[in-house]
């Protein structure tokens, strides 16, 4: 059994560990009667212990894969997203020991699990580095940036808990709508993971030739039954479904197909869940957030931005600029990925100014934290797939 296989097994172990730990944190939140028992609950202690075991195997995955591939495993979508999930758990562990609040684990771990599940939908093989990536700055820049982003993500988790707890679900309001929308988006991610892994397990593949936007012939493989065809596409595999419509060259039919399938499965899931629980999903999970202390969540939200912001600046902007100067001869080139890193940075700068000088605390601050996470995810997902640029190797 090679190192690469050991690595894959370690990742599976940590995935399971996070699932189990989530259950224990759930028990800690449910079982707590008072502030004191909530903080030092034995369920919580078991939960954090299992989380740490999961985190250690996750780090084990990272190190063994590093050794196997000869470079830091952050060079493609699978590797980066998995590492991001790992750092998210790491950041959670750090914050847990500062504030000892099981509620955070109950929400942070499922998000980490979703991120890892999402990551494993991408090709998992170890890829050799193209010349542009052969630099120690790959390791330094990507790891620091991911670390910063993961700490910032904790602030969104705290914000989400704050909102779930403090939004009045019994009255119709804009906030109630949007928090439900956040729940819906989470269902979409689950929809993506479910549909993608189902078709992958079934071994579905449909190959097409098409003409790309620069009028060059290209070919593409769908892993979903194609709903949208590429520009002037011709099916190469027999017995595949005929696409409903053919898209113009600037739109990627495969991406849209994936999106629509995820939307479809995610929506079914959402409707089914609502029929089963007979409540809004946000209302359904609200009791899980009720134990959390609002003031504490607000502070965790703020504190994690404070901890994460300098790390993010260093990794995603300063190290990025130094490397860009070494590899591409310019420290800044307004490439979409760079611009979105700047946007993320500007957003958190605005967050800090609003909080420091204009007293945005509580719900405002929590919403901003959630939006910040959405921007980070946008940068990770959409910028790579929709807005092509120099960083599109991440595909």
């Amino acid at each position, binding site marked *: 059994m090679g190192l690469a296989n050991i690595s894959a097994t370690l990742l599976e172990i940590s995935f399971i560990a996070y699932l189990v730990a989530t259950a224990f944190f759930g028990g800690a939140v449910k079982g707590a009667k008072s502030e004191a028992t909530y903080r030092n609950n034995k369920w919580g202690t078991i939960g954090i212990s299992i989380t740490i075991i999961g985190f250690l195997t996750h780090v084990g995955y990272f190190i063994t894969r590093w050794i*196997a591939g000869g470079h830091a495993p952050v060079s493609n979508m699978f590797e980066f997203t998995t590492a991001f999930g790992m750092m998210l758990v790491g950041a959670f562990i750090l914050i847990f020991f500062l504030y000892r609040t099981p509620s955070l684990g109950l929400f942070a771990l499922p998000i980490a699990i979703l991120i890892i599940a999402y990551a494993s939908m991408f090709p998992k093989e170890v*890829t*050799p580095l193209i010349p542009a990536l052969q630099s120690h700055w790959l390791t330094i820049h990507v790891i620091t940036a991911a670390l910063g982003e993961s700490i910032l993500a904790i602030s969104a988790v705290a914000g989400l808990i704050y909102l779930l707890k403090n939004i009045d679900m019994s009255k119709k309001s804009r906030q109630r709508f949007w928090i439900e929308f956040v729940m819906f988006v989470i269902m979409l991610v689950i929809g993506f993971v479910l549909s993608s892994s189902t078709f992958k397990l079934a071994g579905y593949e449909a190959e097409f030739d098409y003409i790309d*936007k620069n009028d060059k012939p290209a070919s593409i493989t769908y892993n979903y039954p194609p709903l949208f065809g590429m520009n002037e596409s011709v099916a190469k595999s027999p017995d595949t479904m005929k696409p409903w419509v053919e898209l113009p060259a600037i739109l990627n039919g495969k991406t849209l197909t994936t999106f629509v399938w995820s939307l479809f499965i995610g929506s079914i899931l959402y409707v089914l869940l609502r029929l089963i629980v007979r409540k809004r999903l946000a209302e359904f999970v609200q009791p899980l957030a009720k134990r959390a202390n609002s003031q504490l969540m607000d502070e965790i939200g703020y504190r994690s931005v404070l901890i994460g912001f300098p790390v993010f600046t260093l990794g995603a902007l300063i190290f990025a600029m130094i490397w860009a100067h070494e590899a591409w001869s310019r420290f800044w080139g307004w490439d979409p990925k760079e611009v979105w890193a700047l946007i993320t940075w500007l957003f958190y700068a605005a967050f800090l100014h609003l909080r420091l000088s204009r007293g945005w605390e509580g719900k405002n601050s929590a919403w901003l934290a959630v939006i910040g996470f959405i921007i980070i995810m946008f940068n990770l997902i959409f910028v790579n797939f929709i807005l092509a640029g120099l960083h599109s190797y991440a595909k």
Partner: protein
Amino acid sequence: MSKIKCQCGHENPFGTVLCEACGRPLTEEAEKSQVVDMRYEGSARRSQTYNKSIIDKIWNFFSSVKVGVSIIVAVLVTSAIGTIFPQKLYAPVTSVNATDAEYLAYYEKTYSFFGTLYYKLGFYDMYNSWWFKILIGMLGTSIIIASVDRVVPLYKSLKKQRTKRHVSFMKRQRIFGEGKAADPDESLMKAEAALKEMKYNVKMEDGAILAEKNRFSRWGPYVNHTGLIIFLFGVLLRGIPGFYVDETMWIREGELRNVTGAPGYFLKSKDFKLETYTKEDANAVFGEALDRNGPIVKNFQTDVTLYKEKEGSLPGSEDLEYVKDYSIVVNKPLKFDGYNVFQMDYRLSELKSMTMQLIEKSTDKSFGEFTIELDDPKGTYELDNGAKVELLEYYADYDGIKDGEPVSKSPIPNNPAFIFKMTTPEKPKGEKSFVAIQQTLETEENAYKVKFVSADTRDISGFTIRKDKTLYILLLGGIIFMIGVIMGSYWNHRRIWIQKGADQQLLVAAHTNKNWFSLKKELNAVKDASELPAYMDRQDKESKDERQEGAES
């Protein structure tokens, strides 16, 4: 009008909310509030004083954080719009000096209506547009003015703060407690010791304690703003000629040429290499990836020699001295005299030389082969048996016949064509022949022909040459920014006030700019060590409720 005198006797600038010295609320609003707003210590922003001339109004505009945040959001939104379609720089428009019409055509063709709109609105070159630059400039202005307006009063009021604060100040703090103590003086003494233990700066006078920690973290924002301004200043400097060089050049294997943008320096390309990963040499784990993706490039490399013009010699004299050999690889630019030469691009297999042979058409008999070096062809090629071929004309990039003569559209050997004069002992006068790729023209039927045998090719390396004197300024700005942001984020300014009230009472108040959780932990420790009265966090209603619940159950 311009000064406000507090009851304690201290004169405060106009606009002050809390007396700089004793902390008494000075405005009606502050007096009414339960918890007083401690941002900037309730000191007056400098700009609030004047609001008369137009200059003051502009100043005040930029001084506002609300305006600052609005500018940040505006930059954020415009930046985002700029990523919807590729920017001009990344648009795959073929010609080097493409015209605006070509760009418009590209956006129109690729993105139809929205592309045209994107072009027309100037979004296709967003980050170089005048209004984007104005936005960045406004951001810089706002950073400077808002910081200057706040840091001075903040510094003054932190410097002037008295140990003993007015009760009304204490009562309006977020963390406040009062109660009877068995021995207030002893409590104070113990508290002082406990606070010192926790690395607080403790001042005790007149039955009051002021314990303070990490005041420097309050300067963090101003330090990081300074860093940002230095960075923006560095970017501005690149507009000055000589501060910034950005050129590209192509160099062929074997060619010696001047380094574009770096007068006096020469490069000779010895070899260009393009290597791909193979399953044999690469680590075994890459096999799967190579199967799925096809070949993956491992290395782009140009081996070069750098020369420098000798001191005192003139351009063109080719009086060069050797500097060094280097292999330019992606991520490892060649560095000299402030310049960086980057491996950016390549073209494979440009024609270098062509080997031909002279043949008698009727017998297919060859008089031997000759090789034409395309970058320096010779006039005459002597062959076997007294035959020779003269090269009368050479067209590197043959583009048909215009006005009765063959023309070349560039000096690059993309499509070489030749006019030969073939002389043999049988035909001492010679025969003329025009030879291009896949084409031979003869004025009259010839007995001989020049036949293509083989060609040699060479690769071309594309380099980018940069010199950027502003880099160190930018780096300095970045470092200062990081120092500032770390100062402000990883430390927090904490203060604890303890004082004696009337008959055995002790008053406790505390404030921090962030991280109340840790402040409370420290305060709890002091409280336990010195029997201070219980305090309350007035923003945390839940813990109190929970504690009561806990007590009841």
